[in-house]
């Protein structure tokens, strides 16, 4: 599995309109709905599930990134989407710092192993200072796509 295999680039948002956590989650889930990766009828339900999961324990793991995610029966295939915010969003992060890059991952309920693989790819990259910096500096969807494709190339080498 490569990072670019799970990211829905058509749904990527280079500048999130939302300035709060729940708004950002809804914006990203709705973007996936518009691209047909989840049904529009499910968007509200899925966003609520992601927010509920986030309320249980923040996925704001520090260093300006958050990885909200949920397993949901309305999700047919693992899909991730990225949203960036230059202002920063309060994700109630472990380090209490704002989040500039949000990677949202939706997974079906019946394939926990593939969910872990997807998380592994996301975290393997988020650990890298360069990856986080490039993602934060990205201005356009095309910039973000390049960051992800470059990350895949680094992994292949």
């Amino acid at each position: 599995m490569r990072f670019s295999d799970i990211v829905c680039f058509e749904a990527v948002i280079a500048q999130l309109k939302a300035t709060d956590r729940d708004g950002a989650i809804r914006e990203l889930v709705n973007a996936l709905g518009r691209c047909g990766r989840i049904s529009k009828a499910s968007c509200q339900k899925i966003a609520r599930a992601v927010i509920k999961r986030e309320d249980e324990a923040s996925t704001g793991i520090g260093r300006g990134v958050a990885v909200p995610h949920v397993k949901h029966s309305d999700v047919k295939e693992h899909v991730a989407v990225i949203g960036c915010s230059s202002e920063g969003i309060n994700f109630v992060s472990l380090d209490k710092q704002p989040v500039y890059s949000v990677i949202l991952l939706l997974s079906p309920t019946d394939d926990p192993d593939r969910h872990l693989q997807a998380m592994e790819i996301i975290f393997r990259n988020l650990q890298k200072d360069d990856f986080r910096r490039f993602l934060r500096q990205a201005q356009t969807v095309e910039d973000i796509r390049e960051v992800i494709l470059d990350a895949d190339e680094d992994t292949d080498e």
Partner: protein
Amino acid sequence: MSFDSEQHTAGRAGAMSNGDYQVEVVIKNADGLHMRPAMQFVDLAGSFRSDIRVSNAQTGVDAKSIMQMTMLAATAGTKLRISAKGVDAQEAVEALRRLVEDELFKERSIGPDCAKEG
């Protein structure tokens, strides 16, 4: 990585010749070491003063880093080695083993065979 319960013998924290402690554990909860259990693990590891590392067949990571722990992507059935170096190494290794194998991170297990002491 597939799980073979017959090959697994329940780990006991063992002292190494250099004074480190280590134990092999098997992930037994059905959803594997996803983020929430990883956070429980990191929280518990962080409560000890020892340096603690967790390794699978490919790589070893810092047990106190959520980013690194999530990177292990340990699915149900995966064997991990927990090793600790420091003043409370033995206690740390045993507490973490308990969280993984006895408490299953308070999640559902992959089956009765895997939850028993073997």
